[in-house]
């Protein structure tokens, strides 16, 4: 029974991987490939958020701060030092690790919503500061190399290379998350989410667990930001540190199912095409519309299924298709 479920899940993942691998070969128009790239990027960000927000239950509303650093640093090293943006990626990771310690250390002492509020405030503060900081291009933002000096600049005219790079990063992140989920650290994160007091009484180092979760999550969020900046070749305060960046990760993970491996991916598969469609049909950047869409999803989740679609599936799908308690 248990083995049967496990192998069914494995087959499901393989099928999903196959679909993602052939997608851009089947849909060759720039429009569909672009959606694919956007979807992968959103899935990476939401999966990264999911580590601390989903598994450890520490809801960050300011993950844009890590995404933004990841986006800015590669373009900074290009603009000011002429380095390939790629070299900025590890530097950004170091910066976000320091940043997550600064945000996490004081707030993880306390229970409740202090962490959420602190992340929101810090992300906004950074957005405002970067908007006035000339070295970071102030309100205008920064650009990457317009003409590639070599493959290492990762500047391609086709969407295809980006698609497969993003897919590789997403696969790596999901593998890491899967390993973490099975390890002691993974169990400790879930215990912290379920009840700090009981977790402590069983010897779980609650504060350290939250901090490590945040650091791991921040590192991958930073990578997502770097991918975005390298692909787009441009970043400004809004696209790097904006509130929509933070909220999108949260919404996607929650929609699919926070604290599950596949949840953020499902959330991205649903939200990104939906968001693209509403923006296309109703014209413009549609940022006001995006707020309405996000608000609607939050209301629906809160009203009907806080566990997201994965939980909905586990509750209502025919018994033999269900994955038991282990989220797929």
């Amino acid at each position, binding site marked *: 029974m*248990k083995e049967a479920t496990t192998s069914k899940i494995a087959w499901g993942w393989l099928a999903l991987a196959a679909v993602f691998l052939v997608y851009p070969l089947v849909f060759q128009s720039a429009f569909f490939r672009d959606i694919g790239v956007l979807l992968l990027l959103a899935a990476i960000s939401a999966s990264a958020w999911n580590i601390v927000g989903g598994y450890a239950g520490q809801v960050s509303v300011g993950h844009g701060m890590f995404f933004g650093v990841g986006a800015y640093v590669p373009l900074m090293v290009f603009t000011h030092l002429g380095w390939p943006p790629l070299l900025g990626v590890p530097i950004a990771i170091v910066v976000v690790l320091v940043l997550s310690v600064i945000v996490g250390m004081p707030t993880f002492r306390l229970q409740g919503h202090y962490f959420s509020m602190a992340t929101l405030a810090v992300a906004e503060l950074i957005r405002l500061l970067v908007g006035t900081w000339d070295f970071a291009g102030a309100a205008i933002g920064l650009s990457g190399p317009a003409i590639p000096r070599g493959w290492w600049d990762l500047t391609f005219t086709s969407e295809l290379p980006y698609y497969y790079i993003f897919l590789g990063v997403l696969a790596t992140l999901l593998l890491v998350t899967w390993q973490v989920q*099975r*390890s*002691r650290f993974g*169990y*400790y994160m*879930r*215990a912290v989410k*379920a*009840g700090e*007091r*009981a*977790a*402590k*009484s*069983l*010897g*779980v*180092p*609650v504060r350290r667990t939250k901090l490590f979760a945040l650091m791991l999550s921040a590192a991958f969020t930073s990578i997502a930001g770097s991918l975005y900046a390298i692909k787009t070749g441009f970043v400004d305060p809004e696209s790097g540190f904006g509130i929509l960046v933070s909220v999108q990760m949260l919404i996607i993970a929650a929609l699919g199912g926070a604290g599950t491996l596949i949840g953020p991916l499902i959330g991205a598969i649903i939200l990104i095409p939906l968001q693209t469609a509403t923006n296309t049909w109703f014209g413009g950047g549609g940022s006001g519309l995006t707020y309405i869409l996000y608000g609607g999803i939050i209301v629906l989740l809160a009203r009907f299924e806080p566990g997201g679609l994965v939980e909905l599936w586990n509750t209502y799908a025919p018994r033999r298709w269900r994955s*038991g*308690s282990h989220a797929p």
Partner: protein
Amino acid sequence: MLLEAKNVAKHFGEFRAVADANLTVAEGDVIGLIGPNGAGKSTFFNCLAGDTEPTAGTILFDGQDVTNASTETHARLGIGRTFQVPATFEDMTILENVMVGAFMRHPGRADARAHAEKIIEMTGLREHAHLRARSLGTPGRKRLEIARVLATGPRLMLLDEALAGLTPGELQQAITLVRRIHETGVTLVIVEHIMEVIMTLTARVLVFNQGHVIASGKPQDVVKDPLVIEAYLGHGHGKRARKRGPAA
């Protein structure tokens, strides 16, 4: 002495939930803690388990001062406790709940799982192992609390009404389980309102009333103590569900 609590007090503002309580526990003891609702038993447990810092007093465990040590340190040193209101991890399975406890002394996943499975077998939770904790009723969750703490490999276990609310049949099973835990070398302090449990399991009881230890000795003698009878009669004798303290 395995545990020595000296003049422990816990005040909430002006209110003295625990005042000047003393307790010594030798390795291998089974000690009962009784007293009317709101007497301060759970609060005293919280002090012993490092869940709350006592306002005054010292607590030594195996000779080491743990008065102000963290909850995790208490757990690692070998003080385990259950909660009066079960605090099981609701969205995790029974096996996963027990594994969280097992991980403390078995960092590897396979080891932790094997150890947790042994504990699950011993506590009779086998058939529910892959169900979520939230699907259990109160008796099951109390049992899971015991299993989870047991998995941390404690030297001392503090059971806070872990046997309350069971049917007579379940109660007998639970008493057998506690006996078996004791036989494996675990020292026990048990808070319980059910006198049957106290009489059959413990060799020594302490009676709490309004934060004070008002009597101690053999269970048969203590129940005849006029002070104890007075405490119970004066505090809602026969209607112990009347008032439930918020501390669990």
